[in-house]
């Protein structure tokens, strides 16, 4: 079954916010990771490890991922293509 990428990403970000003692809030796809959610590079690193566990892939490990990641939607798009059938 194809994994629910948006749900996994929202769960991962909520875990990061909770683990770092920040308020959790509704997370929407249009939100800016840094600007709206306050995520820094450490938070992003944690999110990527959590997603590797829940989705079984880390698209950032391959050098081909050079797209800018600014919003929740950007993150969803990157993981969507990484878990798509046929993707390595």
């Amino acid at each position, binding site marked *: 079954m194809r994994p629910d990428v948006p749900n996994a990403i929202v769960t991962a970000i909520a875990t990061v916010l909770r*683990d770092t003692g920040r308020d959790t809030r509704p997370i929407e796809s249009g939100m800016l990771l840094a600007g709206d959610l306050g995520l820094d*590079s*450490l938070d992003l690193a944690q999110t990527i490890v959590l997603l590797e566990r829940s989705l079984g892939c880390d698209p950032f490990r391959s050098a081909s991922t050079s797209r800018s990641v600014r919003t929740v939607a950007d993150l969803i798009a990157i993981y969507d293509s990484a878990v798509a059938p046929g993707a390595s």
Partner: protein
Amino acid sequence: MTPALLDAPAEDRLAAAIGEMARRSSSAVAIVAQAGSAARCTIDYGWLSRAIVSLEAGIDAGRPVGIVARAARVETLVVIAAACGRQHVPVAFLAEDSRDLVGQLRDWVEVDDSLSLPAAAAGERGRREFETVPPQVIVATSGTSGPPKLVDHSWDSLLAAARLAEHWHGLGWLLAYDATRWAGIQVWVQALLTGGRLVVPASRDPDVVARALVEESVAILPATPTLLRRLLTSADRGLLCRSGLDRITLGGEAADAALLEEAQATFPQAKITQVYATTELGEVYRVADGRAGFPAAWLGKALPGCVRLAVRRDGELLVRLSRDTAEVGTGDLVQRRADRYEFTGRRSDVIVVGGAKVYPKRVEEIVRGVPGVAECRIYGLPSPVTGELVAGEIALADPLPENATPESVRAAVLAVCREHLEPHSVPRILDIVKQIATTPAGKTPRKPHS
């Protein structure tokens, strides 16, 4: 041990000491196997001595190039080592994770628990008139800092740290280490050279170890801080308090102040010694004042054995064994705290998060102080964003403190870390596990998954 025995060449001494003990008191217990379990059994000095003589006859007839001790039972390892030593045949001990290295020992003969030499053992070597190379003891490294490899030791270096004075004789020694590794071999050699009893627990289960300590009246416990911590946090308290331990000898890793205090409180009559040794240098110094690290006043002074310590600008501990040898980097980092130098960890264990260094041992000390945490380990996880990320595992106390849940303990750990550590040092991945794994050498692993 009689003076005559002390004059014997190092390689002869194990067999000679066991033989002498057997003559004096053949039924004296040498080894308690499967201690702490219903399968407990004992091996006496008479049996060991006869088995050594019998294997020696086989070795003498065949003169193999070398013998690989491929035995599961400690008594068999002892017999092989003693017989090889006195027959001047090199002996190799290969732990479970280094069995593949046997290919490097060409034409060596394997001896297992049956103690029989294969018929093919009759080698081409023949008896030599002169032994130009001292018979060696080959042991595989534990592979904590790389893949296991074979290291050549001499019988002299194996016996160098042995305590032979009269008050060390006839004591009960617990074998907490793997019997095929350097640390473990030293324990059984020490116990049997001094007519003592070697107590081998049936497993590493903390309750089994605690039962072995009490039921076999163990006097001396050599262990790593990780093994001691596991015993203190997980074994039955009532049982531990009944033990009559005289001495705990810690080695292999640095012990922190909290562990030393807890150990002293649990075993009030025990003297706790910390031994600092490295694979390359052997034993460098011992501290027995019950405090972490070593006195800052030791720097630049000549210690027993003419050892001198120094600290490089980057915090690495340097050792010079004698006037004639060069200063050697140890890979261990130290930091001055008041009148002490305390260990902050191995240089290779340092986690680098976005260019900033994190010392896992320091994080572990803080995590361990949180109520509800029994054991923990901190390690670096590779990250495409920050290079590495601090990750950890916690094993929970049983029972948990009142009103605590696994999730609340985990949240408390993170909150305490945020309060005491810089943001990059706070664990970002923190898993609750049943038990913290230990390396085959009984240390806390620093790799993501070992």
